């Protein structure tokens, strides 16, 4: 479809900082996100994982530095999607939530019903299309948010701790959807502080501390041979301050 016309990848962050008043939220980050296996953003609470994802989505403008998507610097979030840690459910049915995402992404009216069915099937909510979205369980809401994000036919999918409050069964079904998306060629960038999840999903790890990227490594190297003392401390389960 539009894939040939424009690409969001590589996503380049060049010496990007985000500050709010005197507080530095993101500190001189230089990062390249290229197609491939999921990039997991890891770090203690308050390290700036969510802010980095918002920046990558174009929701936050850098205070200094440059960010570009496939060479473009405009912020129109075409074929980018994000799932927030607590996604807001529109006060509509499950199917209508996905249809809304499709409409906003420019899917033609006539194609929507079929796409809604496809996307709900993909996230395992096909039976619940008529249910009010806000009556779903936490795990189901996350999967609906994933379906709504996938409705944007994203090249890059940003996920902010989508399983933070879920039980293991719900976590597995969310991870299955993420894995499926990654296998179909969507670049997944996901924040997590569940190290087991990082092992299960990651191709590479970006480890953040205090708003800065501290270490970046392939997942195996990160766990076996962390190159910074902060990462080693974090992996031991000690507090990184």
């Amino acid at each position, binding site marked *: 479809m539009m894939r040939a016309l424009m690409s969001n990848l590589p996503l380049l962050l060049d010496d990007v900082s985000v500050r709010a008043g005197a507080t530095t939220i993101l500190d001189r980050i230089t990062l390249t996100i290229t197609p491939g296996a999921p990039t997991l953003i890891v770090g203690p609470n308050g390290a700036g994982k969510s802010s980095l994802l918002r920046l990558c*989505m174009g*929701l936050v403008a850098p205070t200094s530095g440059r960010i570009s998507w496939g060479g473009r610097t405009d912020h129109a*979030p075409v074929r980018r999607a994000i799932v927030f840690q607590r996604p807001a459910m529109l006060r509509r049915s499950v199917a209508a939530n996905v249809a809304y995402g499709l409409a906003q992404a420019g899917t033609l009216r006539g194609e929507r019903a079929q796409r809604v069915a496809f996307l709900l099937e993909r996230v395992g909510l096909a039976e619940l299309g008529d249910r*009010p979205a806000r*009556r779903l369980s936490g795990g189901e809401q996350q999967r609906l948010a994933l379906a709504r994000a996938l409705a*944007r036919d994203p090249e890059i999918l940003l996920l902010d701790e989508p399983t933070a409050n879920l039980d293991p069964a719900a976590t597995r079904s969310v991870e299955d959807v993420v894995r499926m998306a990654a296998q179909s060629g969507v670049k997944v960038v996901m924040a997590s502080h569940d190290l087991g999840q990082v092992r299960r999903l990651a191709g590479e790890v970006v480890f953040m501390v205090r708003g800065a990227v501290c270490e970046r490594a392939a997942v195996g190297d990160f766990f076996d041979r962390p190159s910074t003392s902060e990462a080693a401390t974090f992996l031991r389960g000690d507090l990184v301050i």
Partner: protein
Amino acid sequence: MSDQPTAWQLIITGDPALFEIVCLSLLVSLSAAALAAVIGMPLGALAALVRFPGRAVVVVLLNAMMGLPPVVVGLALYLLLSRSGPLGEFGILFTPAAMVFAQTVLIVPIIAALTRQTVEDLWIEYRDELTAMDVGPLGRITTLLWDARFSLVTAWLAGFGRAAAEVGAVMIVGGNIDGFTRTMTTAIALETSKGNLPLAMGLGSILIVIVLLINAAAWGTRLWSERQVSG
């Protein structure tokens, strides 16, 4: 006075004059509430979403105007609509149209102010998602109004209740003309001043029952449809 029928007798016998008064009251207040919703809800949503200098002043004004005195609205519209007024050429003073106009002016601020509050609360919840989905300004307004529709029923009811209960504005611009612009509230005021208290009380009871019924119907609809769509 003893040969005058009581309010109950009028109701039970379906007195045509009484029926006419009740119908006109409902027609005027429901029309005003409908018009005010069409004007006030988008206005409230705009005030909730658009950031501009002096917005705080507008919000305070809007909230203050919820308490507009009906007689003052009536007087202002009387001056506008009277023969020598700027809108005098339309000749609608002392007609039901003028009454609808007056009540609309009276309740637009109520509906707009309550809508603003509701939409602003919902916007806090939806802001990130709608921004991430690249929803434009018009889309934001329609999405928020639609998704807030159950709460907006309450805003509409507040407006309708105010319109149905007020007497000052309709009295001044309608003129309380028998069989033409007489509403329940103006009739109650007139009958009370004439000393016909049973009729005044009867009309008052009918008014309260009607307002109760409409509120109950709207509330029931809200609960029912909320159960269908929302959690």
